[in-house]
């Protein structure tokens, strides 16, 4: 549900980086979505498509790349990708882990069709 306000945030960030006259040339906006961010890529794409319709950016598509939820264990020192999003090491079951990635939403890049 909050994908709509996140799409709005993406739009504002893009507008800060691309001047008015170049916005119709935007062909792709690439986002990294943390697997444990609570944001659903399909819902975000749907929301993005809906809100760009009334802007000069209507040609832009949202490209989403999922970043796995990765934790590092302080006991066995190994890194594991825990798909469930739980704070547990998959190698030794220790709860003493720190999050390395997979919780953020990052706007990576914007592609423009400007020859």
């Amino acid at each position, binding site marked *: 549900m909050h994908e709509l306000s996140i799409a709005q945030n993406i739009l504002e960030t893009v507008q800060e980086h691309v001047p008015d006259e170049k916005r119709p040339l935007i062909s792709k906006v690439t986002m990294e979505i943390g697997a444990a961010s609570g944001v659903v890529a399909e819902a975000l794409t749907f929301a993005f498509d809906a809100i760009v319709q009334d802007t000069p950016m209507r040609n832009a598509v949202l490209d989403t790349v999922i970043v796995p939820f990765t934790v590092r264990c302080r006991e066995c020192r190994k890194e594991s990708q825990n798909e469930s999003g739980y704070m547990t090491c998959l190698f030794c079951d220790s709860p*003493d882990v720190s999050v390395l990635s997979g919780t953020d939403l*990052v706007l990576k890049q914007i592609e423009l069709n400007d020859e």
Partner: protein
Amino acid sequence: MSIVTIERKVLEKNDEIARKNRDLFRSQNIFAINIVSSPGSGKTSILERTLEYFNGKVPVAVIEGDVHTDLDAQRIAKHNIPVVQVVTNGMCHLEAKFVSDSLSAFDGKNVRLLIIENVGNLVCPSNYDLGEAHKIVVLSTTEGDDKPLKYPAMFRNASVLLINKIDLVPYVNCSIETMVRNALTVNPKLKIFKMSCTTKEGIAEWCGWLQERIK
């Protein structure tokens, strides 16, 4: 074709305002908590029991977040403490700006404990930092003991879990032991309190935890 590299968190603006809120709370010795849960778990009831506990002893202020109506603020105002109702008009979570915009209402009140009651939703509020010292997640026994596993983000980001409606355990299909185990699977560092707003069991323990942190 050209590529503009951005590398920016999309919620950076919210995080920035949250940081300012946090700095302000720290400089004014305000202990701020953000209470999150699904609708109907008992956030407002816990808030009312908490206000009764601190009645007159600690200056408390409340920010109420709701999609519609100011029903919760009306409940809180009866306790004679400053309260701001934020109506999000459909938005499923509070953002840091709602909090910073509300703070002027508490000027000169010497607030020591600020309780922010988020919109009832077990998914969306987990993405938005408000500047609070701790996220407090409420889960009631009527919701089922599997919820921490199904909504891990909220439980991972919280530091305290309040298990509410423990008086209803005999009537519902919920094991508190399983709920605790599931919550600790997601986040082994969760501090857990079990309570009932009807019998008031566990309220003093929870308020004691708060009391230790209020300056």
